[in-house]
């Protein structure tokens, strides 16, 4: 019962921020006096924030439905990273930051679930987009590490708090409230990333640097040849 209540509280906490923002945006729209472009900008902001909130709801639903069985298949990590880069580009731009890619592997395939991997990378990207330094560059990279395929997101900004790094180092976050990278967040995103990675037999982690952090997910490489090689 307690776990259920905590889960509800976490979800409520995380949804509070986007809903408050949507309210503020709606209140700020003055249809009598605002020029058309200002109203259009407010409309775009409303869409952006509401889509963020809906995404959180989707992730929570998927988490609840995550069972013992998860469909795994060979996935092109290049394609997965390109997709996430395109999706995150507006968010990075919004926060006056940029995400670039650095692929050091040719056409690698990893065993993963396309949907879950996308969400893991998305939550890494969200953390990086908000937490990294202003006007900074973030790097999404693909490399090998200890026989695994490592997809990593490096940011330049404040170093990762020690308690967050320690929680991520174990690769498994027991509950969202253990860590929170930014205000208004319960750490739900990284908790979801941790659970999804585990469902794919993958592992997430983080590296602390003096000038920022790296979030990574290590995937099992697929030995199946790609049809596109």
């Amino acid at each position: 019962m307690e776990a259920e209540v905590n889960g509800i509280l976490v979800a409520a906490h995380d949804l509070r921020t986007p809903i408050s923002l949507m309210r503020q945006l709606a209140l700020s729209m003055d249809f009598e006096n605002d020029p058309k472009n200002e109203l259009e900008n407010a409309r775009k902001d409303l869409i952006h924030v509401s889509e963020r909130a809906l995404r959180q709801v989707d992730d929570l639903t998927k988490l609840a439905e995550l069972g013992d069985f998860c469909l795994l298949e060979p996935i092109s990590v290049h394609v997965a990273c390109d997709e996430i880069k395109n999706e995150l580009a507006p968010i990075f731009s919004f926060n006056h930051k940029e995400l670039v890619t650095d692929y050091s592997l040719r056409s690698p395939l990893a065993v993963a679930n396309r949907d879950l991997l996308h969400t893991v990378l998305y939550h890494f990207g969200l953390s990086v987009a908000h937490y990294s330094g202003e006007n900074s560059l973030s790097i999404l990279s693909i490399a090998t590490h200890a026989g695994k395929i490592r997809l990593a997101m490096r940011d330049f900004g404040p170093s990762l708090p020690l308690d967050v790094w320690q929680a991520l180092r174990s690769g498994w976050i027991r509950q969202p409230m253990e860590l929170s990278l930014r205000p208004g967040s319960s750490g739900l995103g990284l908790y979801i990333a941790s659970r999804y990675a585990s469902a794919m037999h993958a592992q997430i982690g983080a590296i602390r640097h003096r000038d920022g952090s790296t979030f990574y997910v290590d995937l099992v490489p697929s030995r199946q040849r790609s049809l596109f090689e």
Partner: protein
Amino acid sequence: MIFVVANDFILAKTIRKACRKITDEPICIDNDPFTAIETILTFARPNLIFLQSLLIGANAFAFLNELYSHEGFLSIPIVLLNDLKSLGGITPSDLEDYNIKAILQIDRMTPRSIRKVFRRYHLNNKKIPQRSAKGAS
């Protein structure tokens, strides 16, 4: 100059827009408390600061401690933008020590309440019109 230090850019924009109805002075936005302090120390002392209670890398009180460590900044009126359900043990005396003149709850404030505290606590509030040409209150 007015300063808005808030971790969400959209929130800061809505506050700026609300204030814009009754003033033409520059309204700066920053989501990083440390670069905000740099800007304040470099350019101009603000007549009012809207400050969110939870910020990236620090909280509002860490920001204020840093700002007040520099001489001449203690008199800047602060409006706290609170996103917590309660103020968690902060006393009225604490608020006075940090020159926090008003607290706005983010999930309940309106453009009108923003303008009300702006008029009331702005350092040069005698120069602010009670009603703008556009009829905003």
